[in-house]
């Protein structure tokens, strides 16, 4: 099960990297969404994947039975999902605004912050 998930995470990563390397910002956003999800899957897998033993401490014991999944990574993912979701929402709005303002979603043509036709630095007076 873990091996399967590891392969899946690897596929997600490669898709994400491929998309982030694109010139177009909307594809980069898709890549970032996939990247966030692949990280969540990675942490999820790190906490052991099993459905045989529920992560409940039985009466009389003070530890989880061995072989149970670790519940902490799932709590971590919950935080990470909320954060990456809100960031993705922000980035999508930002990309849309950039598209509206700059008239393009091609990052090689976004030159407002770093103009292409800047004058040379002064060489003397």
């Amino acid at each position: 099960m873990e091996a399967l998930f590891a392969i899946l995470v690897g596929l997600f990563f490669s898709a994400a990297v491929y998309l982030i390397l694109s010139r177009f910002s909307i594809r980069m956003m898709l890549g970032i969404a996939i990247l966030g999800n692949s990280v969540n899957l990675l942490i999820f897998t790190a906490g052991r994947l099993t459905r045989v033993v529920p992560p409940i401490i039985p009466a009389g014991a003070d530890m989880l039975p061995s072989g149970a999944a670790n519940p902490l990574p799932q709590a971590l993912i919950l935080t990470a999902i909320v954060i990456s979701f809100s960031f993705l929402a922000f980035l999508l709005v930002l990309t849309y605004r950039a598209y509206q303002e700059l008239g393009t979603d091609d990052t090689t043509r976004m030159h407002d912050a770093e103009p292409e036709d800047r004058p040379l630095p002064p060489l003397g007076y």
Partner: protein
Amino acid sequence: MAAPVTDLSAAMVTAPVPPAHWLAILPVVLCISLGALLLMLRSLPRLQAWIAIAGLVVLLLLDAALLQQVVGHGPLTMVMGRWLPPFGIAFTVDVFSALMALAAAVAALAAGIYALSDTTESGRRYGFFPLLMLLMAGVTGAFLTGDIFNLYVWFEVLLISSFGLLILGSERAQIDGALKYAVLNLIATTLFLIAVGILYASFGTLNMADIAERAAALSGTAPLMTLACLFLLAFAMKAAAFPVNFWLPASYHTPRIAVSALFAGLLTKVGIYALLRVLVMLLPAERDELSLLIAVVGALTVLVGALGALAETDLRRLLGYVVISGIGNMLIGAALGTAEGLGGAVFYALHSVVLMTALYLLAGEAGRRGGSFSLAALGGLYRQNGWFAAISLMLLLAACGLPPFSGFWPKVLLVKASLDVGAWWLAGTILLGGFLLTIACGRVFLFAYWRPASPALPPVRTGWTAGLPLAALTILVIGIGLLPEQLLQLARSAADGLADPSAYIFSVFPEGTIR
């Protein structure tokens, strides 16, 4: 079924927390609650600004008290929700954290005062001051936390507030810069999160003290080298180290000057702080292996920053490259890993927080007086006001690392530390970088100040909101340069705390607590 009788003292804090330990979380509590309060006072921008300034003064005092407490009594730990570590989330403060938090509060106060005149009414209505307080919550939290997942969360807190600050005003260039900044920083934090996930899988704990103790035993069995590389890449991106630095000069010059000053002072230093904390304290053996890589990256960062500054026309972008060059120096300190080198890196980080904030405020004033940020257009500032020119020259010289200003001592430490381990090429790089920066800063002074302006500039009055923070930061820069002894001691003890974290670990796990 009868409830089992349990002894809570084995798993929970049962003794009341000493009042001094509250200092560990009060700075963050203050920032978050003031941020929320200011958000509610959105319709009263004037009152909002004054509450924010008062809050930042209180933050400064709290951080100073925290530093005094930590220096006097060693690292202190406060655990959330009474659960003992490693289950409860701990805030652990040592000298390094407290020093960085104090420097951050100084920078934030200066930028906040400058913002009184720099932000427009609409900028304040869109939430400059609430975002400033939340940014400080993120920065201070990142410095003070003792839990690595918590560090990730504070990174996100400061990142989302920095996005807000960056696009305040919604100009075209701002949106363009913000897009690059946002995407690259988000990728960097995602890399950090990946590393945290693998870290938890190999250690089974997220508490930094716990990890520091177990790292040596695990180094043969767990993929710690991969981890160290991931952390290095993530934090190098945050700190704008050489091959991953190009987002910084693309974005730092776009927002309002107060925001640029705050970013230049704080954000890259948070990356350096995390790098030192994780690589030096948590994974020392892996840092040793990677030291050549870190040294090469640091040396290239120094040179690329200095050469970029030489080639730049826009004053604010030029300062962006100065920031990058400084980051290289700190990385060299981290690569050396000796007490001297780490002390130099910590000292450089403190100096850089103060100085880069001052330099951006200076650029703002120069732009306001000269009517442009371009070196091709500026001129005549010396004739216009001698005092302003004097302050400018001192801050520029401090950036190059010339005595008697604050940049000199950390460079001396770093050069000496590199020569001590026989890395003459690192010492040479630091000196060459300083030389190139001196030329770049000399160019700024030559063009913007000495060159006569074609129509003589009209006299401009600098209001106290710009004059006070500039003067205070300049005094600090000269003061550190002339009387470095005390800060040097503090930086040394911070470096010692990183190299030998036993006091840090003991403050989290006193004898007799469970693991």
